[in-house]
């Protein structure tokens, strides 16, 4: 008696969101099966891997990253290099320097960097804000203007500033909007609902439902994503059918395991290897929970996750 195979294909589907233009454009979503469940049905678009760079330039505390970007004189140079990284599908520029509690760079300075990056790369571009809601409300509309015609994805639209961000990104410049919520199905749904009410098209929204590094309350991430995917596919909830894009790098590289020096914890070994482990494992877990794209920093993590995706789809 053979194994009784019962494919579980849903009639509902994840929306397809296309980022970028031309040959290098990528599509997120489009599947009607659970992540990597190719035995249930085809996965139209394999999950994608993005490389994060910031307006702060090269993080020279990590030898692997320093070596990779060696010779880059500007953020635009880095973007170009990142777009050629093995396994990379898109480049993510995070404007961390805009944070009023940090470097507090001006909107003009940051937009100038965005413009240089837009001119330098032909791969799909994703721009993330500085995570301060007021600053992002002022910054992201200008970023959208600078990205006009690139079909970029502008992330960091939150409940507090979605009107300003959505009106420019989604309505004025017809780009893709990343709706950011904090690891909760209801918050994710709410933001999608109000964003579409504002007039942003549903197939122009990707969700950033949040993550944590593995070991740091990651159980909430698993359950939030499991629920969101469940609602989208088995309950055909159109307000949760947006593809998910997850910024993995920041959380992964900021936990103790990836920050503590080898001098302080000699038995733990080199810091870079620990950070890569954090980044890879968090990304793999996010992908199998429902992320259609992950944002990573280290070349080794990017190559590895791209390889895993290739083996699975």
């Amino acid at each position, binding site marked *: 008696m053979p*194994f009784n*195979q019962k494919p579980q294909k849903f009639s509902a589907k994840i929306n397809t969101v296309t980022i970028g233009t031309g040959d290098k454009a990528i599509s997120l979503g489009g599947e009607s099966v659970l992540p990597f469940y190719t*035995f249930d049905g085809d996965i139209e678009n394999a999950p994608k891997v993005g490389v994060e760079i910031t307006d702060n330039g090269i993080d020279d505390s990590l030898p692997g990253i320093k070596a990779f970007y060696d010779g880059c004189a500007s953020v635009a140079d880095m973007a170009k290099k990142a777009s050629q990284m093995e396994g990379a599908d898109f480049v993510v520029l995070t404007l961390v320097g805009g944070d009023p509690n940090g470097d507090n760079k001006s909107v003009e300075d940051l937009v100038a960097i965005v413009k240089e990056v837009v001119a330098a790369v032909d791969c799909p571009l994703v721009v993330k804000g500085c995570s301060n809601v007021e600053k992002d409300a002022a910054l992201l509309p200008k970023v959208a203007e600078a990205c006009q015609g690139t079909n970029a994805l502008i992330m960091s639209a939150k409940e507090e500033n979605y009107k300003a961000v959505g009106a420019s990104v989604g309505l004025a410049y017809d780009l893709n909007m990343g709706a950011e919520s904090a690891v909760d199905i209801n918050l994710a749904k709410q933001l999608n609902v109000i964003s579409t009410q504002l007039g942003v098209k549903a197939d122009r929204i990707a969700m950033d439902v949040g993550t944590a590094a*593995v070991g740091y309350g990651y*159980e909430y991430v698993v359950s939030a994503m499991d629920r969101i995917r469940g609602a989208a596919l088995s309950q055909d909830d159109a307000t949760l059918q947006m593809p998910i894009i997850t910024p993995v790098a920041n959380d992964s590289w900021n936990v103790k395991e990836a920050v503590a020096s080898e001098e302080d914890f000699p038995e*733990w070994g080199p810091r870079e290897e620990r950070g890569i482990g954090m980044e890879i*494992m968090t990304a793999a*877990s996010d992908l199998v929970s429902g992320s259609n794209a992950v944002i990573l920093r280290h070349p080794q993590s990017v190559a*590895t996750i791209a390889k895993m995706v290739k083996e699975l789809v």
Partner: protein
Amino acid sequence: MALTGIQIFKMTPKKNCKECGSPTCMAFSMKVAQGAADISACPHMSEEALATLADATAPPMKTIKIGAGDAEYTLGGETVLYRHEKTFVSRPRYAVAICSCMDDATIDAKLEGLKKVDYERIGERMYVELIYVNYSAEDGQDKYLDIVKKAAATGRTLVLECTDEAVAKAALDICKDSKPVLNGATAANAEAMNAVATEAGVVLGVSGADLNEIYDTIAKLEGLGNKNLVVDVTGADVKTTFANAVQLRRAAIKDGDRTCGYPSIVKVAKLAKDDKYLQEALAALFTMKYGSIIVLQDMDYDQALPLYGLRQNVFTDPQKPMTVEPGIYPINGGDENSLCLTTVDFALTYFVVSGELERSGVPCNLLISDAGGMSVLTAWAAGKLSSGTIAKFIEEQVKDKVSCRKLVIPGKVAVLKGDLEAKLPDWEIIVAPNEATQLVKFMKEMA
């Protein structure tokens, strides 16, 4: 499949004697069907009826025990596919692989190396629980028995991969008392291996070319009366292996096919040989979806720290939050003169706050009081974190141990400041920022 009240009623003696505490056999049967009463409450059920019922009410996935004494582990027994539906009950266990095809120096180094990872995280000991011992026919029986002996001497529980009955028997003679797993049954040798495993009283691992062959072999072993099994789902590639792991688990739990309801073995070491990073990715993948024994080539801290953290998170009970022990936690070499900060015992809060404090580089003491494992705002709303609880904790457990009299409280409960100043007159009460991410800046300004 679960039985209905009527089906159970048909099996009762219909005496209506009330000894079970229910007025009638019918009422009792209804309660049993709903799980509100246990069938054992009726002293008059026939053996035959009890056996039928036991079978029908058995969980969809077997609970399998491996190892002995302190090194005994429970695998399987899951009742849901997603943790939010209820909870996962048995965390996966990790193994490091050795093989009789390796030279002695490599084997010794691996056995020594796997002992390095051994630490505690939120009350759980993190270490390599299992050693996977692979038999290479070319290198002969003696070499294999030799490495089985060496591996057994570590005290870790073994998983023996060996499809040769005679060699398997000899290996079990060495280590059967410590209850290893014998991963050796295939379609070709099922009967003989079954005899070896049952005689030694150990769990038998089943493998096969594809799911159909695996399924048939399990069915055959069950027919021989052996339900003490695990399934090696490792296929030719990653895709097949993931498909095997998910489909078996789903068939057991969703479709109630008990022949699929056994824990799994996933050999990540084989799927991504010599690629440490891909092994990391796959170890996480199969920890999330349905690996029970996950075999790696090595385990160093750079793999263990994220992997064990992931496992600890995913395999917590959603109803019971993880907590850290209340007490004084010095950070960055904090001593009795260092600044004191307080927060709740919810593990996630502790990790986030202590991580940021560490990043600040400023020596300090983090004071964790018992707040019922809730986050700051929830604990405050529930009355588990108040000026009273904090003051009591400081008076009883802190004030004699530190000489600093500055206490930083979470920004989210800034309202407690006034009350605390009244209750702790010697102390200067300082309010922290609202979000942990602002702590680095805050600490640098305080220093």
